């Protein structure tokens, strides 16, 4: 089933994660080490999201690391106002940081393989690497907002409501982006 990932640590639901909320409280009160709990609870799925958008894990790790630093700064400076769930907020930072990185990469094109970790071993990893590259190539020509909407909805299995929170738009706007993205992909790749 699309979007349900083996080994997911958290059951997909709209309820906030109390452990993350507690860790955020502690970071905001000055306990920097509490941020590690946030990283450990979220890094796997954020790097997976980043990899699916960037096309490889190495670039995704760079992007997600930068996103975590931005998140930490926001928590420490009191800029996170808890209007959204911690996870949704982190997804928003990762998506925005990823799209910024893709724009920078578009301005100075490099070979996609430059970011690939040559020490990665295992046949499953090779298959995943090929699939990541294929997914990256598939969505690369779409506008950034459509890339994000498509990956979040179809690949990550997020609801349109949550995607709207992540992208800062309405559910209707998310649905529009998805329709346009699919139409563009079908036309460009000549697939039904």
């Amino acid at each position, binding site marked *: 089933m699309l979007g349900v990932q083996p080994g997911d640590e958290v059951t997909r639901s709209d309820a906030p994660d109390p452990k993350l909320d507690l860790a955020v409280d502690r970071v905001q009160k000055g306990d920097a080490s509490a941020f590690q709990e946030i990283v450990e609870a979220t890094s796997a799925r954020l790097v997976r999201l980043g990899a699916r958008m960037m096309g490889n894990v190495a670039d995704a790790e760079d992007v997600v*690391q930068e996103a975590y630093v931005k998140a930490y700064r926001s928590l420490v400076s009191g800029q996170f106002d808890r209007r959204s769930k911690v996870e949704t907020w982190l997804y928003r930072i990762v998506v925005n940081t990823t799209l910024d990185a893709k724009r920078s990469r578009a301005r100075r094109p490099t070979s996609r393989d430059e970011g690939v970790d040559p020490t990665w071993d295992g046949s499953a990893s090779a298959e995943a690497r090929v699939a990541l590259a294929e997914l990256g190539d598939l969505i690369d020509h779409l506008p950034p907002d459509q890339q994000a909407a498509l990956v979040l909805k179809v690949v990550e299995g997020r609801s349109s409501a949550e995607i709207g929170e992540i992208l800062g738009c309405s559910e209707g706007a998310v649905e529009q982006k998805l329709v346009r993205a699919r139409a563009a992909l079908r036309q460009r790749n000549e697939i039904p």
Partner: protein
Amino acid sequence: MSDSNETLDQRLERLTDATAGVRPRAGFDQRVMLRVLAEPVSVADDLWTAARRLVPIALLVAVVGVVWAVESDRSVDDALALSDDTVELSW
């Protein structure tokens, strides 16, 4: 492997399944924490935090001050307009 007959949805589902096991490399969490803990605590950040709390209060004080000044000026004008005293001018 891609199949030229697969639909878009089939292709996306295949790519979703193939990338489901993607995880960060070993030590990623530790690298993140090293980077986070190395973040300098800047004076600018502290000033920004304090300013965010003080600015609303300062704005309120400013508004109250302006209202008070306008009202004071008005009551002075009213007082002058209602004054029964004549002003003697000496040439």
